[in-house]
């Protein structure tokens, strides 16, 4: 900047003024030149990183993210929210939009699994069977939040195995003190030490180590959480949206996902 001649400085200043004026006139997530990506809250870190890469690769285009529970995003899209890309943490919410022709060409791009987290300092819960102990405060995601549905599935298969004593699932459910609206709220209740345990994704737990401890859920009880992504049918930036999905599924996107602890689906995964 310092070596700039007056003219360039002027143009820069003017450009800045125009940008500021534009920024002031367009509401935050709804800028004309920005791609709007609605993504499950568990995708916060990898997608934020990917967004930065995308902006660098496509100068002049920014990515605005809306991270929330997949069920919230689905409702917002159903209600006509301006979205270009939808990335869900389960197949159901994507399927619901597909059946209404609100998204196009959903593809799978990541997998995840669940874990139980406890506060690192004082763990009332040391094993999976402790979840059923009276007085334990357990937090789950809501019944329509993918993370909540997956947790219900895990508890059911633990119950069916018969290895955790009678009525394991109902004893655990009796300890539930809150059903949060997205998995990150679930996580924060444990990070703050307000809850004794919670079901979150393996990748969520990794974001707050060492403040939480994880209890591994063995594969035979665990679920494979599957993440589909699609272009929203009403999108005004379909080409750009397709570009974003290409980046996500390309080598760079895969690297970022793996680094954040996600697993990759088998190649050419088409969702149901």
């Amino acid at each position, binding site marked *: 900047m310092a070596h700039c001649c007056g003219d360039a400085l002027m143009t820069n200043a003017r450009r800045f003024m125009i940008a500021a004026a534009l920024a002031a006139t367009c509401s935050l997530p709804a800028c004309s030149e920005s791609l709007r990506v609605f993504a499950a809250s568990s995708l916060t870190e990898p997608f934020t990183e990917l967004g930065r890469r995308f902006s660098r690769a496509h100068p002049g285009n920014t990515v605005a993210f809306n991270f929330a529970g997949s069920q919230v995003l689905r409702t917002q899209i159903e209600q006509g929210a301006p979205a270009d890309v939808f990335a869900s943490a389960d197949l159901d919410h994507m399927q619901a939009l597909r059946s209404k022709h609100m998204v196009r060409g959903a593809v799978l791009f990541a997998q995840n699994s669940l874990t139980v987290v406890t506060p690192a300092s004082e763990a009332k819960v040391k094993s999976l069977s402790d979840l059923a102990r009276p007085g334990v405060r357990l937090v789950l995601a809501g019944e329509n939040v993918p993370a909540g549905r997956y947790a219900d599935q895990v508890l059911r298969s633990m119950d069916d195995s018969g290895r955790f004593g009678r009525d394991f699932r109902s004893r655990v459910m009796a300890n539930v*003190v809150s059903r949060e609206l997205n998995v990150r709220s679930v996580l924060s209740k444990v990070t703050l*030490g307000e809850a004794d345990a919670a079901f979150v994704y393996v990748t969520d737990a990794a974001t707050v180590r060492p403040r939480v401890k994880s209890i591994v859920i063995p594969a035979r009880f665990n679920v494979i959480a599957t993440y589909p992504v699609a272009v929203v049918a009403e999108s005004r930036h379909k080409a750009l949206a397709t570009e974003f999905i290409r980046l996500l599924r390309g080598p760079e996107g895969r690297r970022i996902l793996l680094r954040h602890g996600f697993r990759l689906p088998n190649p050419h995964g088409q969702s149901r």
Partner: protein
Amino acid sequence: MGNRAKSTRHWDHGEGWVLGLASMGIIAFLAVPIAALLLSFFTNSGLSHLHSEMAVRALWLTMRTTLISTALCVILGTPMAYLLARKRFPGKGILDTLVDLPVVVPPVVAGVALLLAFGRRGLIGRHLEAVGIEIGFTTVAVIMAQVFIASPFFIRAARAGFEGVDRELERAAYTLGAGRWRTFWVVTVPLAGPSLTGGLVLAWARALSEFGATMMFAGNFPGRTQTLTLAVMTAMESDLDTAVAVSVLSLALAVATLVTAKAFLGRWEGPHG
């Protein structure tokens, strides 16, 4: 319009019309969303959705918690309001600001503050937990969030009420041999009555609409901490019709409280504004 301003200007009809037209924008802006909500309610047989278990449980919980929290606002707020109305003391300005603070603090921030005070690791919460008292995720947490957010509404109205009481009448009561306590109950409270009731209703309305602090501090569990507002938020994601029905229920409660509050606070257009 009962405009009793001292200005000698008198609005003629023409100007009234111009002002009316100029106000149309905001009137439409306020009315259309409400109309949309009601329209959605009636076109989707909203009444049937009010019987859903979620709506019923949320309504009962909301009634229970708001009644208790409003009562607490009155019990804890009345001495405070009287103090602010009648006494001058150092630090009054600070106290005044403190009492008004919850009105301007975002509720979600109030939730964080409550968590840091009464949560398991909070300043006070950690000592409570040591003796086996846990507040987070309980109905008590809901009530605390409501008191925190709603109490200023009562205190402000009550203070104005106490300030408006004619001190001569109180002195007359003393002269007639009534003690302080009796004077307070027989003279001061009845005279400040409309303000007290108005404040009570406003505080109740604010408690009814509490969302952010509750979500943060009490969590979301049907029958225990899921109030009407949290039920709307939860239902929005799965069952829009129930969300609309519960919204209309909340709207009806809000309108009822507003009408009541205005009646008591005497804000009807008339010679007693």
